[in-house]
């Protein structure tokens, strides 16, 4: 087991390095001079020169990269060009929002996907199966920013049931917080639900065909018990592994959802930073995301290996 984990960690390092190279390269390829952006309306040449010197924007790119990488390894993600705050602090303040959004979306997705997937598998080939598939594909096909806009129109503007935007931290009011998270979580969750539902259905189908299920049937256990107690648990394993891979998709969806609902999360932070040429923030966020993604997938890999020892033997 340990050599397996060791190998996995080792392969993660070059991947991370490539990510840093990519994000740094893309950032520097972005047209537009951040010094000009930062100099505001006045565009005072003295200020522009000062900014360039302070953030070492005039030094050769490889040097800037080396300096930045050195800082990152020491845990210093730099400072936002726009507001002078530490990138680490910025991320720490935005992370809870995106994490909460992700968890709530996940819950929504699971609540929708598991029953729908199980029913579709059990009633395969019949109306419920087709219905479930269409539903899943609908969830997959709706652009989530459009769904968000339509929900705001209907629920906030027309009906006035829920606020259109903003975020209230849990510490300031659980109910206020949830009122603002319901719609975004639903919007994000439906897309994820579609993917999970299909996976649930196909892995459930696979499990239902297996011998131990037939044995349970033969022993006289009712359909529902068989499904829930035996099949479901086994069918859930591939679904769980999918979740790790879906993290990236969740974050992508969060970008637009946060934009539409004005949630001060990760996604919005990064999009604004790209448009503001706030290099340090974009780089910091991407590095943190990549580390998280790789770490989660590593955990998933290990779980997979624990469940199926043949994999570790590779």
């Amino acid at each position, binding site marked *: 087991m340990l050599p397996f984990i060791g190998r996995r960690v080792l392969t993660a390092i070059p991947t991370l390095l490539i990510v840093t190279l990519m994000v740094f390269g893309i950032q520097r390829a972005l*047209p537009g001079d951040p010094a000009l952006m930062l100099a505001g309306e006045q565009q005072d040449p003295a200020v522009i020169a000062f900014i360039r010197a302070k953030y070492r924007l005039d030094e050769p790119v490889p040097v800037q990269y080396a300096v930045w990488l050195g800082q990152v390894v020491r845990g210093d993600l730099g400072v936002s060009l726009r507001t*002078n705050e530490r990138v680490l602090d910025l991320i720490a303040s935005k992370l809870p929002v995106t994490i909460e959004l992700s968890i709530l979306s996940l819950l929504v997705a699971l609540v929708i996907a598991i029953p729908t997937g199980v029913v579709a598998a059990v009633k395969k080939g019949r109306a419920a199966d087709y219905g479930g598939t269409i539903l899943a594909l609908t969830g997959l096909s709706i652009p989530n920013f459009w769904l968000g806009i339509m929900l705001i129109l209907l629920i906030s503007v027309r009906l006035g049931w829920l606020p259109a935007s903003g975020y209230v931290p849990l510490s300031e009011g659980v109910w206020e917080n949830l009122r603002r998270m319901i719609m975004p979580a639903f919007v994000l969750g439906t897309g994820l639900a579609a993917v999970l539902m299909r996976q649930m259905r196909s892995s459930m189908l696979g499990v239902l065909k297996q011998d131990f299920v037939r044995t349970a049937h033969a022993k006289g256990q009712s359909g529902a018990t068989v499904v829930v107690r035996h099949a479901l648990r086994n069918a859930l394993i591939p679904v769980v592994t999918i979740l790790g891979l879906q993290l990236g998709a969740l974050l992508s969806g969060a970008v637009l959802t946060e934009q539409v609902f004005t949630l001060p999360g990760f996604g919005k932070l990064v999009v604004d930073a790209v448009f503001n040429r706030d290099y340090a923030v974009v780089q910091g966020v991407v590095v943190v995301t990549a580390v998280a993604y790789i770490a989660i997938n590593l955990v998933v890999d290990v779980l997979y290996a624990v469940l199926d020892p043949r994999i570790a033997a590779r």
Partner: protein
Amino acid sequence: MGARLIRWLTLVVCAALVGGALAQATLRIGLAEDPDVLDPDLARTYVGRIVFASLCDKLFDIDTTAAVVPQLATGYATAADGLTVTIDIRSGVKFHDGTDLDAEAVKYNLDRSVNLPGSNRASELAQLESVTVVDADTVELHLSTPFSPLIAQLADRAGMMVSPTAAEAAGENFGNAPVCAGPFKFVERVSQDRIVLERFADYWDAANVLIDRVVFLPIPDSSVRLANLQSGDLQMIERPAPTDLGAMRADTNLVIPSTASLGYQGITINESKGGARTDPLARDVRVREAFELAIDRNVINDVVFDGEFLVGNQPVPPTSPWYVADMPVPGRDLERARALLDEAGVDRVSFEMMVANNPEAIRTGEVIQAMVAEAGFDITLRATEFATALDLQEQGQYFAFPVGWSGRIDPDGNIHAFHTCDGGLNESGYCDPEVDELLNAARAAGTMEERYDLYRQALERYLPDRHIIYLYHTQLFFPHTVDLQGFQAYPDGLIRLQGVSLN
């Protein structure tokens, strides 16, 4: 187990209730953008000024007619030669950290504005040579050359006073926890989420401060900002979309004070920035005149802004005392436009027009594109991110760019940097030494009559060149709920909370 659950539930309910109760004494204002760094000497955004209006008092301020009034200073006197300005400072004023605001503090601030590395105020105080402390309540400013707009500069960020103790202690991180002398003091800031201020008990005009807490919430999307106002989450917003005003006026729970802004929106045309140019728009003033005559400013205002803004043709709005009335806004004249193009010997003029990458700017660009096509201009639009646009302008790699200016109290701020040969904001490359002379003289002249005459002469020279085609002036709207009393709209767009109460 049950007991624990009940205890937890009680805590949650209490937290919710307390949270609810605290919110009632608070004024929540929706901003159109997130402010940048909250250091008056480093700040560069218009929206940052709105927060400063509550956080940092200035030496002078303006009233609703844009006339200068005292704030931290009680008066001033300019010497006959214009090179010395004596400023009297209000006594008994304290900073948020309890330290005194005296002449030494004022000197410290002015020196900081000029000397702080990266200070955006240095260019505004370029004529300031030194500051001397006369006594505890008086300072003398020594200028290198007479500069009439000086007091107006001190009625903006350059005149904001920060606590020297705090500034020394914090160094370049001052903006993370600013300490000033305004009606409200800084509590916390979460980037792109909110800025929280609370009432400063020892404010020099404390009797006039009737609100306990102010929360500024940046919400860039105008529809979302409006939705929050309508739902009661916010009590006031700034810069609503003009196309939403109809709906807001129909809402009996909202009041919409408004006033003309100090700024303008126009199209800057590249004549020679970045090197000699070969396109007809840059080389031939007749082509530029045709371009202007092909545009119907009223259509732009009606179609894009629901008629809410004010059309104009000069750097100041037609409502300004500095406006030159006998050079009025021209109407559309297609025939003349086509005739001019004939004269200039061109059949159709095509060029790429950079537009800022936001829906309103794109809409304006599309309307202009459609209108001028009828006169013979084939424009391709290029939606460019702001960062890129600034860069391209700097390098002179553009043909025309619809861009605006937020406006300054003194007309010099709207004119000098744009139309002088070495003007820091002259992105068209226009250069006329006579205009330079006139505008420099206008800065030094003492009376309004003298200055008006000089600005007028300069206008008569540079306006026909049409390197900037002024199109319209935005109106400032501040929709707020009816329970907010005592609010007035100011032409600089700032939200002043003195005398404002929430019922």
